[in-house]
């Protein structure tokens, strides 16, 4: 592709509007409480942030993997689905009692165990996928897109065969299903849990990137892979690790998302992958900070629209994407 036009940097008034727009619904609760009252707004916003945090877990993996090695994995959604299915299987069989109880410790133990198992499976799968398939497609974007799409289709079908072809119910651990009130606002514990996990991993990823040597290598590699190699670093090994890390994150996102929606189905990964793509599109390639901001934006926007016009919730994301792309075609915080 010949030189792209340079993105103009956003003037300040545009930034102000961009931030202010999100507070319009809050404003509505003040002037027209019968349309939407404050507790409803708070509940919606909380839901939106929780949804955003879970999409973030998939999006951040995608964006770092692309930033680092120029690889776009259209099969990334399978890790999400696998995480969810492993959680579902474990919660329905081995950990059934732990999950059905209302005790915090048992619940947390169940969740932790599920996350560990899901992560181990995803690490293995991620390493295999990277070694066997992705390696063969370096540098050829078209091939990458096609091959990863094909592999994605195959794995989803395998999940249908091995796991389940139906939509299955996912049990949320008892303690987390309870809600409590802050003033008039109802808060479900599971929502807070999702938000906490998202923020926890955001902090962990930032720490990893900013305070470890490997993180430094990754950040440099995202900016200029050729140069970091010429400085003596074998990016190939780093990449396998990062790919596996992306898989683990997606799996955790999927596991928690299953509880959010209270069901699992083989197509959930692909469905959410689209949302993750939207986040990456909005955030710009390679940016972790952009991913969390973009993810929360998408989550909140989705929930706001869903409140007023439920049918347009998904479709309205098109508008969000268009507006942002018009302002900044490479996304809000592109690192490349």
């Amino acid at each position, binding site marked *: 592709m010949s030189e792209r036009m340079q993105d103009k940097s956003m003037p300040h008034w545009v930034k102000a509007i961009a931030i202010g727009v999100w507070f319009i619904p809050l404003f509505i609760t003040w002037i027209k409480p019968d349309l939407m009252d404050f507790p409803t707004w708070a509940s919606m916003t909380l839901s939106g942030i929780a949804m955003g945090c879970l999409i973030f877990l998939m999006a951040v993996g995608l964006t770092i993997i692309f930033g680092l090695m120029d690889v776009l994995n259209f099969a990334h959604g399978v890790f999400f689905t696998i995480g969810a299915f492993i959680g579902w299987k474990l919660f329905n069989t081995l950990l059934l009692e732990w999950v059905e109880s209302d005790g915090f410790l048992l619940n947390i133990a169940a969740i932790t165990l599920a996350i560990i198992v899901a992560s181990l499976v995803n690490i293995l799968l991620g390493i295999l996928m990277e070694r066997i398939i992705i390696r*063969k497609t370096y540098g050829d974007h078209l091939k990458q897109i096609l091959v990863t799409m094909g592999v994605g289709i195959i794995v989803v079908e395998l999940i249908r065969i091995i796991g389940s072809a139906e939509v299955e119910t996912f049990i949320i651990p008892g303690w987390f299903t309870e809600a409590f009130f802050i003033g008039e606002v109802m808060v479900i514990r599971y929502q807070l849990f999702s938000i906490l996990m998202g923020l926890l991993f955001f902090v962990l990823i930032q720490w990893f990137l900013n305070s470890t040597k490997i993180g430094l290598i990754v950040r440099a590699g995202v900016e200029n892979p050729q140069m970091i190699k010429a400085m003596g670093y074998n990016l190939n090994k780093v990449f396998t690790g990062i790919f596996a890390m992306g898989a683990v994150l997606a799996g955790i996102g999927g596991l928690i998302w299953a509880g959010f929606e209270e069901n699992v189905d083989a197509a959930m990964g692909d469905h959410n992958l689209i949302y993750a793509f939207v986040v990456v599109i909005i955030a710009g390639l390679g940016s972790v900070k952009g991913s969390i901001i973009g993810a929360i934006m998408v989550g909140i926007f989705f929930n706001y629209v869903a409140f007023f016009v439920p049918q347009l919730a998904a479709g309205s994301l098109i508008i969000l994407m268009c507006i942002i792309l018009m302002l900044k*075609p490479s996304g809000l915080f592109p690192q490349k």
Partner: protein
Amino acid sequence: MNASLTPVVQARLLARDNRIKSPATIFPLMGLFVFLVLPLFGPSYFTIDLAVKVLIFGVFAATFDVMLGYTGVLSFGHSMFFGFGAYSCAMLFREIPDSPVLAIALAFVIAAVISAIVASLMAFFSLRVVAIFFAMITLAFASFTEILAIQLSSVTGGEDGITMQLPYFFDLSYELTGSLTGQTLLYYFILVICVLMFSLMLRFTNSPFGRVLKSIRENEDRSEALGYKTFYFRLFSIVFSCILASFCGILFALWLSFVSPESTLGIPITLNVLIMVLIGGMGTLYGGIIGSFILQLLEGGLPQLRIIADEQFPQYPWLGDITGRWLLLFGLLFVLIVFFFPSGIIGWLKQRFQKSPT
């Protein structure tokens, strides 16, 4: 001095002779002949249906090839345009049921206009962002368009779609002569439009315009240096491809007399044409038709495979599981072709029977 032909003219005549006699002309003509006479043999519905699907999706795949193989743009949004055409037709039939001819004509016009607008937007974006980013954007758009169609059920009939009342002259009950019915008429209508569209695409890609396109695909910077405003070429090519794609949607709606989000807007539709183009060969137009033929055969023949697996190898139930899932084999086929036959059947044939260049 007698008026003998110059060497250049002689070479041109020779090349034209070669072209006319070459397989590249003979096979398509043979294929066309088969399509022309097929209904006269009173075939089963299954056969005619297969033929129509091969035609429509073959041409649809060819339009996709114009974008991917000739213009070098990978877009997952092609299903959107197919859906635009299909839904325009269905909705017009619903609104003006008394004048089907007008409805069909208007459908073409409206589909063309909508496609032109959306395709122009797409072309604009394809210039501003990296190819992979663009692929993601089109995927998201196509996905959300399908969801919109499902959600806006008052307008689009939702998941159940819209059933169309075909005009009498296209209906199965209208008897012409012998075994030829209104449906046969519809078949020929579709055939004519498809041949027209395909010829248009052939002319387009073999024209000087098409050659410029090829040079842009191979080396954009050089083309720009040579003075071609690459953007306008791309824009025209993309809009052209998408408008024709929407026409394919119209034909599909007419044949099935039914549209639904799943059959006209789903991502699998784009994946199907993608694999058709891959099987046949990118950048060849005919590859789309060949790929369409093979894919329809495979899809139709799969239940047979399942029966074989169940009867011959009952001790391996998983074989039955695997062959029962079309998508699984589809995915495998996809990956295998990309790795081992990236230039498709036509590319492979060209390599096998490579004549030395003049």
